[in-house]
């Protein structure tokens, strides 16, 4: 009796493992294929693909400085990717991550510069939490509009992006301006997040900070909330089918607001980390920063799964940090973007899985036909 149970458990475990391998294998094959296709395109544009890819790897992972800066980008991308992914799980497209990021960054300047004389630990925490909350409200408002008035979150999100950028620029030019320059005042030393370079001299040329750990921790918390708590289940249920969720007694409206608020928290935190650990100030923005938009690709490649987002953020960090080195080696900037675009196309289209499934079905069909004919 017991033995049977153990055997069942074993086979279940094996199935789980098989599923995991499959889940990892599909994107992995897609990434490899996209690199091959990207390489062919690089060659078609008259550059050497081996030079291009080795430059990309050298630029992103070649030495400790490059690795550090790759992880700096990864830090932002984990959080903005998470923001988009969290929205998607509730069936919402949080294109407003861009604006939430900007609000987080500028609010962090307000707190980091305005509240002087606090003990460092408290000040840093306040700066990060304040920035995250600003993003949260920015996103939550869009969620509220969707829940109460039924207006679409994409339209409102885009509009809120513009408002955020203009508001940030207004403050950078007026209340937070430093000597008529195109950037804001610097935050107080007590509001600066710990950088690796403060403790380890090998990291002296990078801006890598404790923000990386914060981002990973937040991703793990998001995973736990989504998959192991009742609230997370409700959010996912709304994402699967709103009407069914409502029929099942779930408050759809509240969950939409909550999901957008949480998504905003993540993007706002990314902005706050940028201020508190990397830039120490906010520049006059000529347009959107692009971090929110990058988050969309990160979430898609990461399959909207918090752990997947961490891995895909690292991948995009490598692509983005490798780009400049490719340019320095003489590859056109546009080609760098094309390689990135192909990657997203291949992974997001999930084409490996579709091809594999089709192949399987065809094979089964053929087999059954053969069997019939044989009989």
């Amino acid at each position, binding site marked *: 009796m017991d033995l049977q149970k153990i055997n069942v458990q074993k086979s279940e475990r094996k199935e789980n493992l098989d599923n995991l391998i499959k889940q990892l294998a599909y994107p992995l094959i897609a990434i490899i294929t996209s690199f091959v296709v990207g390489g062919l395109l690089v060659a078609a544009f008259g550059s050497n693909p081996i030079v291009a890819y080795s430059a990309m790897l050298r630029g992103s992972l070649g030495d400790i400085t490059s690795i550090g800066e790759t992880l700096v980008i990864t830090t932002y991308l984990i959080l903005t990717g998470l923001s988009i992914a969290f929205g998607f799980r509730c069936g919402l497209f949080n294109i407003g991550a861009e604006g939430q990021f900007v609000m987080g960054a500028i609010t962090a300047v307000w707190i980091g510069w305005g509240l002087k004389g606090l003990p460092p630990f408290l000040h840093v925490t306040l700066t990060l939490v304040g920035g995250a909350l600003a993003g949260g409200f920015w996103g939550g408002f869009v969620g509220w509009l969707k829940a109460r008035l039924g207006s679409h979150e994409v339209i409102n999100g885009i509009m809120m992006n513009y408002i955020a950028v203009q508001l940030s*620029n207004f403050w950078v030019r007026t209340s937070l301006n430093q000597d*008529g320059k*195109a*950037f804001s005042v610097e935050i107080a030393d007590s509001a600066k997040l710990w950088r690796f370079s403060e403790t380890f001299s090998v990291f002296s040329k990078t801006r890598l900070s404790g923000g990386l750990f914060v981002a990973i921790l937040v991703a793990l918390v998001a995973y736990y909330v989504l998959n192991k708590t009742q609230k997370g289940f409700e959010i996912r249920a709304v994402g699967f089918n709103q009407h069914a969720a409502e029929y099942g007694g779930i408050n759809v409206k509240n969950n939409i607001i909550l999901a957008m608020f949480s998504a905003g928290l993540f993007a706002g935190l990314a902005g706050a980390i940028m201020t508190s650990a990397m830039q120490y100030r906010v520049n006059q923005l*000529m*347009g959107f*920063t692009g971090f929110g938009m990058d988050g969309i690709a990160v979430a898609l490649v990461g399959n909207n799964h918090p752990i997947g987002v961490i891995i895909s953020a690292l991948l995009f960090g490598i692509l983005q940090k490798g780009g400049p080195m490719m*340019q320095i080696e003489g590859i056109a900037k546009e080609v760098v973007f094309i390689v990135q675009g192909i990657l997203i196309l291949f992974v997001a289209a999930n084409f490996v899985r579709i091809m594999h499934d089709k192949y399987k079905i065809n094979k089964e069909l053929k087999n059954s036909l053969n069997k019939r004919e044989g009989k």
Partner: protein
Amino acid sequence: MLKRALVLVLVLALMLTMFTACGQKQATANVTFGMVTDTGGLGDKSFNDSAWAGFQKAEKEYGVKPTILQSTKQEDYEPNLGAMAQKTDLTIAVGFLFENAMKAAADQYPDKKFGVIDTVADKPNVTSVLFKEHEGSFLVGVIAALTTKTNVIGFIGGMELEVIKKFEAGFKAGVMSVNPNATILVDYTGDFGKADLGKELAIKQYTQNADVIFHASGACGIGVIQAADEKGFWAIGVDQDQSKESKNNKVLCSMIKRVDTGTYTVIKSLVDGKFEGGKTIVLGLKEEGVGYSDNGKNVPKDIAEKTEAYRKAIIDGKIVVPATIDELSKFKPVQL
């Protein structure tokens, strides 16, 4: 035997390198240099393209192929400067937004040389290049004031930044000097990229009777010139000669800023072994870093002569052109 072969190979290799050294006709400078652009990148028909032209001039002269890195995000300026510094001896960054990134990079790579355009980074291994935009703006102000029939002249700026205020102050001083009765309208688009905003403000100023409008607003200026084409007033271009942007030849003249002279000067100083860190080079009318151009042939001879007189007076130091709105309020117009 093996040893002898090795020696032979080495000697041959040595001779080969000597031959190649002789084979090069051009004198090759012993330094490498690269440029990091702002997010505008190459192809902006203005600032970045002009800076790159300075590099191309240096390439022709010194036979060293320059490296270029176009930034995609403001947040990447610092690592981009670092990446370029690892590759080349001299890294030049173009744009005032590089100030803080340049200071950080200069500290991280103390044995490398840097240059920065349009802002000052006070570090021992950085040469900063500034332009006296107010001097060039003064000259086009003189031209505008002598051209206007309605006695109303417009100025359209991009973002309200220190550097754009230099254009405004110089322009106003120029207008005041030859036509004290003229009214000057001032508007800012708050942007450098939106042509529609420029057009909107230009039409607004036109309805307020302005018949000459000077813009210092980057790509917003395309809209100002479009409006000039439609409504028939004069527009004054900026940064480089913009006469080609107008279909009906309504660009009166352009205030030009020789960013290429800036980048070339820094490269030349390094090649000649005269690179000075911590120094700020200021390029004005005297150094031909700024000026005006009239490829549309719209400035009549008498006005051009008068403008030339003012140019000489500024170069001789008889007129000190105000660079800020504060200085402008103390400025006393000089009649020539």
